[in-house]
C-alpha cells in the first residue's frame, strides 16, 4: 500500500514532463494509387473544361454551324481568303467536277475583289509598260 506522502511526491514528479524528441526521420509513405485518381480526375476535368471554354471563346461570332469534318460551307468562301484544307474540301464537295474546282482554285478569273481593292492583274493591265 503506497504511503500518501509517496503518492504526493510521485504526483509532483509527474508534473515534470519528459522533453519530446525530434520527429522521426522517416519519409512519408507514398499515397495509394486510388488517392492519385481522386486528385487527378478533378484536375483532368478542369483542364478539359478550360480547353472547351477556350475553343468556344475563339470561335467567330455569328458563325454558321460547324460541318462535321471541319469543312467550311462554300458560301462563306470569299475572294482573297486564304485557301485552307477545309475550304478546299468544301469546294471539291460542292463543285461540278474536280478539274473545274482545281482550275477555279488555281486561276480565280471570275472572282470579284473586295470593295476598295483591285486585283493585281487589273492594276497591271492599266499600266503602260515599255519593254
Amino acid at each position: 500500500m503506497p504511503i500518501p506522502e509517496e503518492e504526493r511526491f510521485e504526483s509532483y514528479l509527474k508534473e515534470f514532463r519528459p522533453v519530446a524528441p525530434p520527429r522521426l526521420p522517416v519519409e512519408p509513405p507514398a499515397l495509394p494509387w486510388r488517392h492519385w485518381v481522386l486528385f487527378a480526375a478533378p484536375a483532368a476535368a478542369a483542364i478539359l473544361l478550360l480547353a472547351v471554354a477556350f475553343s468556344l471563346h475563339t470561335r467567330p461570332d455569328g458563325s454558321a454551324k460547324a460541318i462535321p469534318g471541319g469543312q467550311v460551307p462554300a458560301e462563306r468562301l470569299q475572294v482573297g481568303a486564304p485557301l485552307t484544307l477545309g475550304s478546299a474540301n468544301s469546294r471539291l464537295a460542292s463543285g461540278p467536277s474536280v478539274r473545274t474546282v482545281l482550275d477555279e482554285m488555281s486561276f480565280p478569273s471570275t472572282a470579284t475583289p473586295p470593295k476598295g481593292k483591285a486585283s493585281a492583274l487589273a492594276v497591271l493591265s492599266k499600266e503602260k509598260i515599255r519593254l
Partner: protein
Amino acid sequence: MQLISRRTRELESLYRQHGPALVLFAAAITGERERAQDAVQQVFLKLLQENRLEQAEDKKAYLFACVRNAVLNEARSRGRNTSLDADAMFFEPPQRDYAAELNLRRALHELSQEQREVIVLHVWGEMTFAQISELLEISSNTAASRYRYALTKLRAAMCAKEDSCANP
C-alpha cells in the same frame, strides 16, 4: 506498399506517444540526452525495417526493452561511465521552474542505475512493477523496493535544496 505505410504510421504513432519517456529512460542510463535520442531513433528506424514489433504482446514494454538493450550495448562498446549532461534538459518543468528541473536531473543522477531505471519506468513510463520486473529480469518485490528507495532518496535530495516540494 499499403502494409509498409500502415506499419510506418503505427510506429510513428508509438514514437509520438512513448518517445519522451523512452528518451528519458535512455538518458537515465547514459546520462546524455543526445545519445539517448540517437539510440531511441535508431531503435525505431530498425523496427521500421524489421517486422518484430507486431509479434510483441506488450508493445510499450517491448519498446523499452529494445531501447535498454541498445543503450547498454552502446555503453559497453564505448566503455564510458555515465556522466550528467549539465546543459540538456530532460524535463519541461512545471511553471517553467528550470532550477527545479536541474535539481531533479542531479537528484536522478545521484541514484544508482538500477534505481534510476525503476523510477523512470514507473513514474514516467507508467509501467507496473510486474512489467518492470519482466523488463529488468528482476522480481516484482525487488522492483517495488528499488522504487521506494529511489523515491525516498529523490525526495530527500530535492526537498533539501528547495523550501518545499510536493508538500501542499
